[in-house]
């Protein structure tokens, strides 16, 4: 009986771990696929771009510097939370905070507005996909392309709508100095409230949302196999 020769130190440990991982590996024959962590990296990149383009990046430096720093740190924290737990509501919260920062910016449409409209949608969709893919899981590119196609379909309509809104705001600005009238605001708020009443009760309060990776009840116990019931050390 001889003992197995083992390489000393970290090299030996790494070699053993590699051997163990190789011996236990289960390989899936997928189409073109990317690892799940790349999706998280993409999510972080889009989120970072969104934060960078938001009003928070160019808040004035001065007595409010502490608050500016705190706001930025908060945004980055929410972004990190969205990357780590994309299945939670943090991605939506990040979008809302970025939108609230936009209040401090002068009204009007710029090229940045169109980019923000795209980034908000892409961020939310990426978070939805990333919520179903673990860090080490594989993701087929076909899934991503199908989602990109759906995002593109919606974005075409929304960008056209934004273009129309930008044109109208230019016309309105030329006529009476810009901004919506009081009646228009009331109508818009009413419309949004109607939308909320239409969508939220049907989608939110009916059943709990199954979370990705949530604890599930244990599977039913398998009947004992007489072939393997014998003593096997």
């Amino acid at each position, binding site marked *: 009986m001889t003992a197995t020769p083992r390489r000393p130190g970290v090299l030996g440990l790494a070699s053993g771990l590699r051997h163990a991982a190789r011996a236990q590996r289960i390989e899936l024959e997928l189409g073109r696929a990317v690892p799940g962590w790349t999706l998280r990296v993409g999510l972080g990149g889009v989120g970072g771009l969104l934060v960078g383009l938001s009003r928070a990046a160019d808040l004035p430096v001065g007595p409010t510097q502490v608050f500016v720093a705190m706001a930025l740190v908060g945004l980055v924290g929410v972004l990190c939370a969205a990357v780590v737990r994309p299945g939670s509501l*943090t991605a939506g919260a990040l*979008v809302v905070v970025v939108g609230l920062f*936009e209040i401090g910016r002068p009204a009007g449409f710029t090229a940045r507005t169109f980019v923000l409209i795209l980034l908000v949608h892409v961020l939310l969709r990426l978070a939805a996909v990333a919520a*179903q893919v673990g860090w080490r899981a594989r993701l087929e590119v076909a899934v991503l392309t199908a989602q990109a196609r759906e995002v593109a379909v919606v974005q075409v309509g929304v960008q056209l709508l934004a273009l129309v809104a930008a044109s109208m705001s230019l016309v309105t600005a030329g006529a009476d100095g810009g901004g919506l009238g009081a009646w228009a605001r009331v109508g818009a708020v009413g419309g949004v409230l109607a939308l909320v009443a239409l969508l*939220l009760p049907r989608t939110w309060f009916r059943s709990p949302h199954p979370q990705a990776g949530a604890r599930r009840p244990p599977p039913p116990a398998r009947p004992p196999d007489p072939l393997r019931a014998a003593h096997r050390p």
Partner: protein
Amino acid sequence: MNEGWGRTSSVAGGLAAGLTLLLVGAMGGRPEIALLGVAPVIAAAWDLTRRTGGRVDVTLRRGREGLPDGGPDGVGPAPDIETIDDTPGDGRLRARVHIEVPDGTAAVRLRVGRAGSTTTAALVRVDRTRDVGVTVRTVRTGPQDLVRAEAQGVGAGFATIDDPVSSAPREVLLLPAARRLGPLPLPFRLRGLTGAHESQRPGDGGGLRDVHPFVPGDRLRRIDWRVTARRSPDLSELYVRRTFALADAVVMLVVDSRDDVGPDPATWSGFEPVRPQDPTSLDLARQAAASIARDLVAVGDRVGLDDLGVRRRPVAPGGGRRQLDRIVHRLALTHPEGEPTVRLRAPQLPSGALVVVFSTFLDDAAARAARSWRRSGHRVVAVDVLPRVRAAALNQRERLALRLVVIERTDRLAELAANGVELVPWAAGDPAVELARLARRSHRRPGAGVAR
């Protein structure tokens, strides 16, 4: 929407964020802020209207088709049969996960796992049906679970998600892969009038035995005219060439299935499982026996199989492809069965057979049987299938226990060698070299010990 499909938190978060931005924009009279929320609201509403009906179904299929449903004769019903492609240590087991999804499914979360293996997950696109190939690396042979697959459908826009569906468990029988060996030792006595080995008996097929004067009964075509012309130019005497007959060997493989231990002595008590990446002694025994059986059957010898651990009818010696399949199948089914019975005497084997015992020799039962067979006149080869022991992680008490076991085992093996049993370590050295050395020892004197 069918039962089981629930909304994801992602769509709720996106919808809430979009509606909030719409509300903020409307209240502040800022259409550019409101438009930030339009796309998420439209997308969520669109996704929720595309309802997914039905359930996801996942089934496991073997990667190899066309094999018989039952086992060979005399072996009994067998589960699905699969053969690993390569030697243990790099064996691959193939399966297919068949997924059926209802219309409107955007993707499927697929998790494939196996006892002792890390679970692999993927998000795959499925258009109605799809087969995903699975390759498992395993070092184990014998009956074992295939893989477990769990599929979870994700609806359009990742807005809804189904409950996970698991595949039914499926068991396969992994046949041991044979390893290429060189020449193999022969028994002291060869049998029969045909075969691949030259015997000492006069007959046909072998090499030249002698030149002998023609006697009644000799065939005319055996007359060697050159010798006759040289020794008897007047043709008063005719000379014939006599040759040796051929013979085949009978080999009994005896597997000691009472032990199935891994390289870590801490697991030998049976309370801790052997790591899945470590081949056990029974895996090595299966591989060794299958390798020897394949090479012997290939040259036309007769091979049988017996098990020291259970009282079961042995596989009688025979030759041919079907016999090899029968032996390999029986080897794959061999495993420790309950409390081993105590044998008062060694199993009876065909006379003159070469006996190859595969055991860890951690106790005296296999060694006692080997000595008994050797005393009966059999040539006995003891193949030591104990894996290379990994003692680095043992504590002091375990080291002491291992040392005692090693001392006992060393004494046992030395006693075997002293009794004329030839030892071949399978895991510690190169078994092909050891077997070739034993083969040279028996082939050096061609025909020695052959029955007359």
